[in-house]
């Protein structure tokens, strides 16, 4: 089987490491060879962050390059646009419609592009957008944006719903399991 490439992109501090941990563990349990490449250190301080997850029968490279990603899970609009070049021709971007202004925009040195998702859609990119922040707040915490988005993206993987739930139970701290399950469901059904 061909290697599947997933990217989780967002802003440092949004919880992309937990999302990749969840997905990585699930894929190992499903019997795939898996590689996950993370970013630690400097970029985590509010910078643009990207995590690569690749799985298949035998995976060599831990990273994803231009035009290779089957799925991009974007925690923020601008980051979806930044990494769109990594998307495969028939790939899909699952994106949180939240806007987080980067410092150059905050200090008026740059413009946050208007309707950047529409721009991508017009170019034939399959963009699946949702307001994950509102759903996360409904689930009980704005921090659950990551799990809402994983719920939304889950249908892109040929893995039964129950296995995702088991993976959540195995990954997050016990006291947050119920809240995260709710967040996953809200994303899954959105």
């Amino acid at each position, binding site marked *: 089987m061909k290697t599947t490439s997933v990217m989780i992109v967002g*802003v*440092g*501090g949004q919880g992309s490491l937990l999302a990749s941990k969840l997905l*990585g*563990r699930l894929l*190992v349990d499903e019997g795939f*060879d*898996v*590689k*996950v*490449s*993370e*970013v*630690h*250190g*400097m*970029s*985590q*301080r*509010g*910078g*643009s962050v990207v995590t690569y997850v690749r799985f298949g029968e035998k*995976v*060599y*490279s*831990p*990273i994803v*390059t*231009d*035009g*290779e990603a089957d799925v991009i899970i974007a925690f923020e609009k*601008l980051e979806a*646009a*930044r990494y*769109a*070049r990594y*998307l*495969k*021709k028939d790939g899909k971007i699952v994106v949180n419609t939240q806007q987080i*202004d*980067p*410092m*150059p*925009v*905050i*200090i*008026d*040195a*740059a*413009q*946050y*592009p*208007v309707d*950047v998702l529409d*721009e*991508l859609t017009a*170019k*034939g*990119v399959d963009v699946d957008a949702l307001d994950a922040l509102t759903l996360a707040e409904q689930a009980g915490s*704005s921090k659950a944006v990551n799990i809402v988005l994983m719920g939304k993206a889950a249908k892109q993987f040929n893995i039964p719903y129950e296995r995702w739930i088991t993976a959540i139970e195995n990954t997050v701290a016990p006291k947050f399991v119920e809240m995260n399950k709710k967040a996953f469901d809200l994303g899954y059904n959105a």
Partner: protein
Amino acid sequence: MKKLMIGNQAVAAGLHDGGLGVVSSYPGTPSTEITEFLSKYDDLHSEWAPNEKVAAEVAFGASLAGARSACAMKHVGLNVAADPLFTLSYTGVNGGMVICVADDPAMHSSQNEQDSRHYAIASKVPMLEPADSQEAYDFAKSAFALSEEYDTPVILRTCTRIAHSQSIVELGEAQPAVLKDYQKNGAKFIMMPGNAIKRHPFVEERTLKLQQLAEDCMYNTVEMNSDEIGIITSGCSYLYVKEVMGDSASILKIGMPNPLPVQLIKDFAAKVKKLYVVEELDPIIETHVRALGIDCVGKELFSPLGEFSQATIAAAFGKELPRVVTADSEIPNRPPMMCAGCPHRGLFYTLSKNKITAMGDIGCYTLGAVAPLNALDSTLCMGASISGLHGFNAARGADAEKKSVAVIGDSTFMHSGMTGLVNVAYNATNSTVIILDNSITGMTGHQQNPTTGFNIKGDPAAKVDLESLCKALGINRVRVVDPYDLKACDTAVKEELAAEEPSVIISRRPCVLLKSVKAKPALKVDEDKCKSCKRCMTLGCPAISMKNGKAKIDTTLCVGCGVCNQLCAFDAIVE
């Protein structure tokens, strides 16, 4: 048991299962998690040392005592530990010793992209280089036996993509830690000239023996698939080559970059029509291949800059690259920045406002360099802020002394700032040093250090008193300021710059990301009072932006630090 692990966790597991007794390290991305994972084992001694030189010397002492030992550091940390390294090569070991070093090609979190393989060559110490987490485990575990058999420390080199990539590891059996006998042996361990001169021939003979090992060992492997194309590669470059070339090229994978094999390379080269060398950073393998009189394609095709990827390999071998779709709008950069409520911000605002020349250092506070604060003039290496300031002032005299400071974090001050401060006092420049004491090692992800009062396991430990320490080092004027108090910062900086002797300002407030720090309620903007003057925007706080002409505070980010409302002349920022 199969488990998904980052390379650093696999290195830790390998060291542990190889019978590790003592590990001492200084944190540095991308090496930090090796020691963090090791600290979770209770059957070995783990610690954060004040710097990498201390860490390597602790590992030396433990090895001398008969334990298997290790230290871990980032590439630039090995510069600090280079002094013990070169003579450790002469003494060799008693218990096996492994020096883990993680390079950072593409500089994800570093100030340069130096290639640590030069150190292995220069110090004549064997180096191993895994290509995934399984190899990280296997190589780390086996390194102790290699170290003891050849009587040498062993360097285990990774890079960011190995250290921070997870792949599946199957753990083997753990060997119990054994403490070998210690017997005094001055001829081997007292490296004064008369002894050292007799150890040097041993080092040269050892290298020849290691070269023999390199010809036939588990670390260097050959995959003969084609007699057209042969590729010599190592580490993560091997992964990219396999991803693109699959079984269409023959591959000599080097897992021991020092010393490199001779006959193995000659034989491999003889079996293929065209030979390529694919390695990130410097042409180490390529230079060796060329020195053997073998023609190859290397750096003319594969850049010494940054990281590779499968796309690098595909492009080099003329493969078709996939189509790319991009948005037409310009996508603004999103550089990292100081967090909302970061205690460094108030201090940097003060420096920026007063147009002070500031010598920076290595840590989160390097982010004080970015817009809009633009508060720094230099960042070189750990500790260089203080010594650099002293040199700056020695060159430019009193005028500079009244307008320039050094800024350095608590952990970095422990690492190598103290010696610079001694120099300020001893060689008497009227320098002003600001220690940004946020009670933790921040940038690498919250490690304890000698100023925090806790050790690596979170247990209470001796706590360095920075005020007393600075006084003991010869500085009479030492004062503490709260960086959330802008007026106090301004007064302190102005007074200490004006003082006729060197001084230290300790800007003290714990990192806002520490669990022990409780956020205050978020502030908000009273839009009726906001006059859109944008003064609050000069702080570069990620929680504040302008929306519809008025300042707006993001309540999910704001921790109520109150620095912005001290700036607002219209009392528009309220609780």
